[in-house]
């Protein structure tokens, strides 16, 4: 069974590119455009991994991450934070509140795919 990936970002063009990339790699993909939608999608879609943008309307990526980690039901969900603000403090903050990995925009598609595959244990 294909792994399920949830893409959360408010920039439509980034969503398009990520969605295309992940589908091409054979993952099952769902999309959310803001934080609240992301939480709803997690509850209905049960993703294995989540690509989570930090700067979003309604709920920031940090808040989404905190909310998910507060619920033990999501213990197996892996979270990769994506941020356009490359400050070290934000990377540290993301990891501290429970993100599994951190990618700075703009990222290399190869690296992103490799990281996701290694995290999901796919060869």
């Amino acid at each position, binding site marked *: 069974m294909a792994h399920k990936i949830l893409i959360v970002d*408010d*920039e439509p*063009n*980034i969503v*398009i*590119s*990520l969605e*295309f*990339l992940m589908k*091409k790699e054979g993952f099952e993909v769902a999309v959310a455009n803001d*934080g609240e939608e992301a939480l709803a999608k997690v509850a209905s879609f049960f993703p294995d991994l989540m690509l989570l943008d930090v*700067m*979003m*309307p*309604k*709920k*920031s990526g940090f*808040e989404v991450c905190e909310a998910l980690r507060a619920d033990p039901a999501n213990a197996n969900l892996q979270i990769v934070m994506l941020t*356009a*603000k*490359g*400050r070290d403090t934000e990377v540290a903050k993301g990891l501290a509140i429970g993100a599994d990995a951190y990618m*700075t*925009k*703009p*990222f*290399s*598609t*190869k690296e992103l795919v490799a990281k996701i595959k290694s995290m999901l244990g796919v060869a």
Partner: protein
Amino acid sequence: MLSGWFILLLSTAYLAVLFAVARFGDARADAGKSIISANVYALSLAVYCTSWTFYGSVGRASSGGLSFLTIYIGPTLMLMMTGIILKMIRISKVHRITSIADFIASRYGKSQLLAGLVTVIAVVGVIPYIALQLKAIAASLDVLLLEGEADFLPWWLDSTFLIAALLAVFTILFGTRHLDATERHEGMVAAVAFESVIKLLAFLAVGLFVTYGMFGGLADVFQRAAASPELERLLHLDASRAGTWTAMILLSGLAIIFLPRQFQIIVVENVDESHLKRAVWLFPLYLLLINIFVLPLALGGLLHFHGQAFNADTFVLTLPLARGAEALALLVFIGGLSAATGMVIVETIALSTMVCNDLVMPWLLRSSGLGASKDVSRLLISIRRAAIAVILLLGYIYFRAAGEAYALVGIGLISFAAVAQFAPAMFGGMYWKQGTRAGAVAGLSGGFVVWIYTLLLPSFAKSGWIGNGFVEDGLFGVSALKAQALLGLSGLDEISHCLWWSLLTNLGLYILVSLNSRPDAVEAGQAERFVDVFRHSAQETDHRTWRGRASIDELVSLLERFLGVARARQQLMLYARGRGAVSWQKLPADADFVHFAEAQLTGAIGSASARVMVSSVAQEEEIGLEEVLDILDEATQVRAYSRELEAKSNELEQATAELRAVNERLRELDKMKDDFISTVTHELRTPLTSIRALSEMLHEDPKLELTDRRRFLGIIVGETERLTRLINQILDMAKLESGRAEWTSTEVDLGDVVRESMAALGQLFRDKNVALTAALPDRCPPVLADRDRLTQVMINLLSNAVKFVPGGSGKVHVSIHANAQRLQVEVADNGPGLTGEECSVIFEKFRQGGNTMTDKPQGTGLGLPISRQIVEYFGGNLWVESVPGEGANFIFTVPLTAPEEPQGDKKHGS
């Protein structure tokens, strides 16, 4: 008529009330809740108004007209010299001074000689005054009992003697109830204030009764007096007695602070320096009130008893009695009794302190009459009690010897002249450092001798007690030595004559001898501390001018002997606690301890005796005069230096605060720059993310379908444009900021600009389904501006509006209004609106509407700052009006061109 026993009973009852008031005051003081308020203090000063005022003023007015007023004008003026009085109070507090004798002695090197001299002058000088009170009470009793049982007492008991004895007992009960002699007498002060109220009420009552009951008011009394040739002269001042008038003001002005009882009340019993503020006007007001009816009463008495035998001193009693108003007469009697007892109590307490500390103690110390007795504090109280009795006995003797010869006023003035002798030593002591002990002794002795010769002895002579040859013909028949016309000085009344000669002698000797003598170290130190009392604080320097060896045990046993064991222990404990020690046994016998011990003793036995006692147990090293002055001078310099330091540190603090504010501002600017860079970074990276991801995919997968390729390339192009726009805006802002922007000013029709901008953004509005409407005039008056820049502003405002309104229901309305000076463009939307704070914040650079943490920034935060810069460049304004929840209205103005053309001006103005 009134029964003697009834009057005796009434008087006793009244004294019992007084005693209750005093006990209440003492109890409250013991409980730490002093009843001595500013008003009580001011009223207690009215102990100045004795039975001499109560009965004697009317007597004096009956013969001298308004001249009695001088006795009250002098104190009014002296009290306003608050600086002098405050200095006396401060010095006394600092040096624990309890009497005027102690004050003078302490200033001139804690001299036993001076203390004794001042005490002798005070006792001798004031005894006639005490006699006067006895005489007044006796006279008032005589009047009340005139037709009754004047001889209700057994033949061997003289009524005046009985009064004196009663007063002595009463005073002893009042003033020496406490075993510790150092405390203030708050109960006594309360009782005196109470008496002041009683005597004022009584006097006003009789004044109103006579003026309005027996006569038709003030004007009536005066007019009837004016009609009588004898009385007419009393209505007007006698200008030929101008010298006496001024002399009396001087005399009474000195008396108000130098009479032992006044010094006691004003200085020793003062609990709070700020009370002086009330006294400075309330006491003069009291004096004014008690004097208003004096002249009417005198005139009324003279008119009423015309042709009969009368004593003007008792008009206040005889007038009501003449009308059968016995109750009023009794009230007046109680008022007079109040006046007399108040004076006697305070005066004898003050004198007894002086006699005990400054006459008896030195004698006991010298004759070692104290022996080895363990506790001297009881002895001290006994001495004071005995002194009170002796002083009243002396008063009675003077009353017997000389009292009959004088009217009340005359006796009082004799005492005034005696205490006026303290003036040179007191004032000199407070303001002139060069004044010396030798000078003070010489001045006081000289003045005192002159006073005795020109005033006291003649008063004896008048009563026939001694021959009056020296008055009539001069001593040894030398006419230049006539007692009341010394060196032929005549034309003055006896008081002015005495005052003139005695003060001249006193002041002359004081200055001359002071200038020709050298103070010792102790004296010079005290002079410094007295004159500069406001600069030297109590402990700071005192213990530095003492050096030597002492034993704690000896000092403690000294304190226990004079203060009593309990009180001494209590004071020691307080002192030890003040120095942060657990118990006084652990304290070192250093200079500070010696000073503490001496201060405690000073309160009990006076400064001179205290010094003698302390030096008997502590071996003091001799410190030279120069060294003492050096130490004191150094202390002054240290204080000046510390003041300078304080000012400097204040300046520093201020500078630090300024620096901190600047630093704060810098930090804020830095944070704003940081946030801006972070925002710009985000804005740059977002399009780059799409571009890179899509490019990589295109690059790596040549087999991508054509539709995907097209779509991806389209996105890449769009994101590239977005990047370009952002970079352009940043550069634009930088240009505007630095003033290097290029402007091309032409005449512009703003309406066209608005229409073009709306057309350019039309698609954006349609995409989001937002209604864009406009109300524009066909032709706008031209403005001088850069067309492209105005278009930039317009597009910025419109794109902001479309960004914030909700899709579907959103509405944006544009309008232009013109007035004589400017065009006004409004862009109104129905979006979420802005709070008051946001309305100003959004125009700051790098700031954006909404919470940047949760809301994705809708732009770079540069659009509005750029727009505002542009509009302001053309002389207009850009602002926003908004109610949260009801949309925002962005407004900018541009001034019209060529308002200087008169034609155009007229057109717009009409």
